[in-house]
Structure formats: C-alpha cells, structure tokens
C-alpha cells in the first residue's frame, strides 16, 4: 500500500511539474510572434555582426524588421536535408537545397509554389540575373524555387607548381598526368566526381562538339543542349566507363575531400584541387592574405558543371513569411554582404551590384594613355558580363577592362564569361535505377584493396604467436631458461 502511495506521489509531482511547464510555454505563445523556420547549409548566410567589415547579422536583422522569430538550423548534405524533411514533414518554412535536389523535390510535389505577387513584385524579381531567370524558367523551376548562389566547377591550382600547369589544367584529364602524382584531389561526393569522370570519359566527343560549335555550325543554345545530353548520361556502359576511369585516376591523386581541399591548397600540400568556384574564390583570397602567394582558378575546356543553390518552401510552410525573408535578403545591399561573407556568387544582378561589387573589385584603375598601353601589352582586356547583368545580349554596357591575369582568375571564379557558361551543363537528378548504379560505382571506386604487406604482416604475427604458444606448452623445458644459481630443475608438472 505504501509503495503505491509513493508511486502516486511521484506521478503527481511529475504531473504538476509538467503542467506548469506547459502553462509557461502557453503563456509565451500568448504573445504571438510568428516563427520562420529556416533550414540552410552550414556557413551559408551572413549571420555575424561585424562593423569593420560592414556585415550585419541578416537573420537577426530580419527578426527585428519584421517582428518575428527565426528558428535557424543547418544541414551538411542535400540527402540529410531531404531525409529530415521526409521524417519531420511540415517542420520547416524555407530550405536551401542544390539544383538536382530542387528538381527531385519539385518532382515529388514537396514544395509550395511562390505567389504571383512575389514573382513579379519583390526585390528578388527585380534583381535576379536574366541569365539565371532564364535557366530557372527553361527547367520549370521558377514556380517553386528562387535562386541563391551559383557557380561553376573547375580546378583551383598553384601556378608556381610547374611551368606548364596553366595549360595542363585546361584539360580535365590533368589528374592522370604523372607530373602531378599525389598532388591533386577529387571531391568525396558522388555526383561531382561522377560529373568529372564523364568529362574525361567523353573528352573526345566533347572536343569534337566544341570544334563544331566554334566552326559556327551550331548556335550556342544547340551546343549547350548537346552538352547537357552528354553530361547527363547514366546508362550502364557510361557508369562502367566512369568506374574504370576513376579507379585508374585514383592511383595518381592525393585523395578525396569535400572540405579540406581549399586549406590544403593554401598550405601547399596539393597543387590542383577539383572544386566549386566559390571555394576557389575563398582559397585564392586566403592564400594571398596568408603569405602573399597566389593561387588560380580555371574552368577546363569543353565542358563544366553549372550549379545553383536555391530556396524552396516545403509543403505546409509559411509562404508569406518565407517570401518576406527572401525579399529581405535579395536587396543588392544584403546580397553583397552575403557574397562577401560566404565567398560565393549571388544569383542577383542589378546595377548596384555591378558598380559596387564587380567594378569596385575588378575594374582597372588606370585611365587614358596608361590604360591603352596596358591593353596593347595584353595585360588588360575587355571583360563582358552583359549576359548576366542585362536582358539585351548585345549590350556593352556591362563591359569593362580587367587585368587579363586578374587576381588569378578570381573574377572568372565569381563571374565566368559567356564563353564559359555556354559550355556548362546543368546536372539533372538521377532516376532511382541510375542512382543506385552510380552509387554502387562510387562504393567500388572508394573501396580500397587490402594491402598485401599488411596481410603478410598479420600472417607473420599469427604464426609467431602460435609458435610461441606451442613452445610455451610443449617445448617448455628448453625454453624456461636456466635455473638460478644453487637451484636444480624439477619436473614441476609432476
């Protein structure tokens, strides 16, 4: 009886504690603040106040401006994000997946469409680059997704590593080159490295296509469509060829990384790093800050990957608040803060960004005769970003003079020229069959063989231990050593 009393007492106390806790939260709710739940990549928004650098914590600033609360959480891979959305449906208002994941989510009907009002009348609609808008419209993402950051893939390299490295990295196949044995890295990420493998496996076909385009037989659009077809092949033969290629090239490279590569470039452990343009911008900047050494970025010939990260509103999300947030971060001022903080390039264009960001960082300061001199010597050249900043493809309003070697391709990493983006393919998401095939290919590539010396070593240990045991057990007399002075041996087992 007393036992049950005690139990009741405990249960009662627990109930009181619990209900008072509930009461408390209910009170807090009573004040009614709207909550925006954002799910973003790690380190992918400016959320630090730093007056010196001109940063504002955008999340906190938004909370203040709109009188709402932001629950901000982060993820590390698209797949983790996707799983989280599947497990906790309706627990986020705004997420930031990559291009192929956006396609997958749209395909699976996981997203709320943006309102007409937002699509026509918001700082995003006003500022988004026409080039990006067109890609989103072409692929039918514009109803459900809003761009955030974009870029290309290429090689970050150390120009001091060899005399020919600048030409060598113009080919994707440079990683086969024994001159760079154990000096280059690939991405430890199946999609990016698969793309890399395709660029190598179909190198000849892509070269022929580029010739055809250059000879003027096809338009830029046709050329780009062809590229997209080649770079999205997932049939068995292609995957097998990719597997073989990657297994071969693995023997020549330093390793796979997703995060350490840019630092390894800066510290000089490696000379070539297959990377996203944003990481290259970061690496180039860090290296020059650290010891004044210069790294460079270039997009190899024939093909590259153009990628985007964008915002989508998962089903059941608070559309109104999500749109308000996107409107808030899409002003030129905030976009530049973000670019500065993250190092990636925003999909937003607009004259303010062109003047305050592009021209401010890259335009040649020299004027008049001195400028002409530089142009004549080939140190300075025209750089045309009309395709990104303007609706009119023929405009030269967005053409400026930049150093040909400007900041080792920093400009090219942030804003590739039109010639580069025409040879960039968007990577679609893989159908389930193809996805499994490519995953298994990847597992096979990443798997290492058991090293033979290690096996021999283990065998020797096992034999030695076994031998020692046998000696201890049977050859015991011989092994036990001499008895001390003044003692004689006895058969101790008897």
């Amino acid at each position, binding site marked *: 009886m007393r*036992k049950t*009393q*005690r139990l009741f*007492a*405990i249960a009662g106390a627990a109930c009181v504690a619990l209900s008072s806790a509930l009461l408390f939260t209910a009170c807090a709710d009573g004040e009614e603040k709207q909550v925006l739940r954002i799910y973003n990549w790690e380190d992918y928004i400016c959320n630090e106040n730093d007056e010196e650098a001109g940063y504002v914590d955008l999340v906190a600033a938004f909370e203040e401006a709109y009188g709402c609360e932001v629950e901000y959480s982060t993820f*590390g*891979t698209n*797949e*983790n994000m*996707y*799983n989280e959305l599947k497990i906790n449906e309706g627990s986020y208002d705004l997420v930031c997946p990559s291009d192929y994941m956006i396609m997958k989510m749209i395909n699976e009907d996981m997203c709320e469409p943006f309102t007409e009002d937002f699509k026509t009348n918001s700082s995003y609609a006003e500022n988004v680059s026409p080039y990006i808008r067109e890609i989103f419209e072409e692929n039918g993402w514009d109803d459900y997704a809003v761009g955030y950051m974009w870029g290309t893939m290429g090689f970050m390299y150390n120009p001091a590593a060899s005399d020919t490295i600048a030409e060598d990295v113009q080919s994707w196949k440079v990683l086969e080159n024994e001159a760079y044995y*154990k000096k280059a*890295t690939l991405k*430890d*990420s*199946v999609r990016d490295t698969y793309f890399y493998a395709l660029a190598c496996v179909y190198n000849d076909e892509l070269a022929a296509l580029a010739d055809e385009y250059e000879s003027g037989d096809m338009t830029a659009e046709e050329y780009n469509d062809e590229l997209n077809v080649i770079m999205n092949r997932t049939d068995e033969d292609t995957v097998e060829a990719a597997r073989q290629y990657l297994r071969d090239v*693995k023997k020549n490279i*330093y*390793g*796979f*990384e997703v995060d*350490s590569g840019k630092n390894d470039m800066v510290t000089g*452990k490696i000379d070539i790093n297959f990377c996203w343009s944003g990481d290259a911008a970061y690496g180039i900047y860090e290296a020059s800050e650290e010891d004044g050494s210069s790294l460079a970025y270039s997009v190899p010939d024939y093909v590259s990957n153009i990628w985007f990260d964008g915002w989508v509103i998962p089903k059941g999300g608070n559309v109104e608040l999500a749109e308000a947030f996107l409107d808030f971060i899409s002003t030129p001022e905030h976009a530049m803060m973000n670019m500065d903080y993250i190092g990636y390039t925003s999909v937003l264009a607009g004259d303010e960004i062109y003047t305050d960001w592009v021209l401010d960082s890259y335009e040649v300061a020299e004027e008049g005769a001195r400028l002409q001199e530089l142009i004549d010597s080939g140190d300075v050249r025209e750089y045309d970003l009309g395709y990104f900043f303007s609706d009119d493809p023929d405009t030269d309003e967005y053409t400026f003079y930049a150093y040909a070697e400007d900041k080792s391709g920093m400009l090219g990493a942030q804003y590739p020229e039109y010639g580069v983006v025409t040879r960039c393919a968007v990577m679609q998401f893989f159908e389930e069959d193809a996805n499994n095939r490519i*995953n*298994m290919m990847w*597992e*096979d590539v*990443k*798997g*290492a*063989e*058991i*090293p033979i010396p*290690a*096996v021999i*070593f*283990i065998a020797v*240990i096992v034999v030695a231990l076994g031998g020692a045991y046998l000696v*201890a057990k049977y050859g015991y007399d011989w*092994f*036990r*050593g*001499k*008895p*001390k002075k003044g*003692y004689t041996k006895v058969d101790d087992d008897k």
Partner: protein
Amino acid sequence: MVRFHFSRKQLCIPYAVFLALFVIIPMLLILLYAFTGEDADGNLYFSFANFLEFFSSTSKLQTLGVSLTIAFITTFFCLIIAYPVAYILARSGWKRTNVLLMLFIVPMWLNFVLRITALRELLNIIGFLGNYDYVNTVIGMVYDFLPFMILPLYNSLQKMDNSLLEAANDLGAGPVHTFLHVTLPLSMPGILSGITMVFMPSMTNYVVSETLGNSNITILGKMIEEYFSTYDDMHMGSLISIILLVIIFITMLVSGGFKQNADESSARGANLW
C-alpha cells in the same frame, strides 16, 4: 505530508529508461531496418536481400577486410607499445610514476578529432601524408587508442600481488620464467580487456582514415555513414551495423568478456567496460 523513500528498484528507473531509450530501442530499430526492404509506397517488408547483397558484393567484403586488417594491426601495435609502458608504470619503484601515467592519459581529455588534425600536419612535415595512407591510418589509430590499452594493462599489473613474484624468485625462476609464467598469465585479463577496447573502435573510426588517409581508404564506419547520409539507404546501413555488432560479440566471446568470473578479471578491475 508525503515523505519520499526510494527503494533500490525505484532508483533504477532512470537508468532503465535511459537504457531503453538510447540502447535497446535503437538496437531494435537497427535490427528492424536491417532485415526489411521498402516498397514504392514506403511500406516495410521482411527480406534477407540486404544480407545477401552484403556477402555477394566484392566492394563491401573488401571494405570489411580492410577494416579488420587495420583493426588487427592497430591492436597489435597498441599491445606491443602499451605493455612495456604499463609494466614500467606499475612495477617500477620510481616515485613519479603517477606523473608518467598522467602524461599518457592527458591526451585523452582532448577531443580526438583535434588531435588527429594536429597529427595530420605532423605527418605532412615528415613526408608521410599522401604517400602512405595505410601507415598513416594505423599511426593515427594507435595514437588515438593507446590509452585504452595502457589503462587496463596498468590496472591489472599494478594489482598483481608482489609476493607471487617473490615466491617465484624464491623457487628459482629466472626473470624470463617469472614473466612468462607469473606476470603474463596474471595480466591476461588486462590484455584481453585492452584488445576489446582497441579492436572494435578502430574498425569504425573513419575520421582517422579520412583525415590521415585522405579518404583513399574506406572502412566500415565510413560505409555506414555513406549509406545513411549519401545513398539514402538506411536498410543497408543498419545491416552493416548489425555485422559490426556480431563482430563485437565474437571478440567478446573469444576474449571471455561474457565470463562471470568474479575472482579473476572483475575483481582485479582490469575490465574497463
């Protein structure tokens, strides 16, 4: 006025809840996922497909082999290095042994990811990084797990009765004989405990193989991670976890971890776990 008296049983409730939530339920979930598949509607059905796939896939078996190889060599070197250290610490008459012991234990208080990151730079300076992926991985693992080997050995050696050694000496045994027939058998519980403490974690500690082997080596821990976070296949991931559990049980069985021998191992405090 109610007075609270907790019986022993009631005091156990929090622990029981903890174990259920964080050990038993997760294990059951792993078991559930390992032997099920998912149809198009997301319904689970019983299947051995994952099991069969694991044992028919070259790359998976290879990874299992690589993990076992690395774990074996790591354990061997830990034992070789730790035994003399533990012996000196426990048996020498030196008064400052406590300080020495501390020196070996102090690194354990630092996060091992940090230690491995630091080790990476060191290996780079001596030119190993990038060239000897396996060697680096083993070095990293030994560095990480050495304290786990030293501690149980130290415990069992320290608690050894000195009079036994004196008796052996009295009866005419030389130092080699004494070591082989008195010290070694008496420290066996410590050795076995150390082996279990080192062998299992070094099969899955993929931070080491990633950082020091530049991701050129895939071990089982990494493979599980890939299945959960990249391949989006929790079923295969769970199955690999089950295989690891089975290996744990086998090592415990072999090393006598299940033996309820009060006067042998546990009384000596050699079993850390």
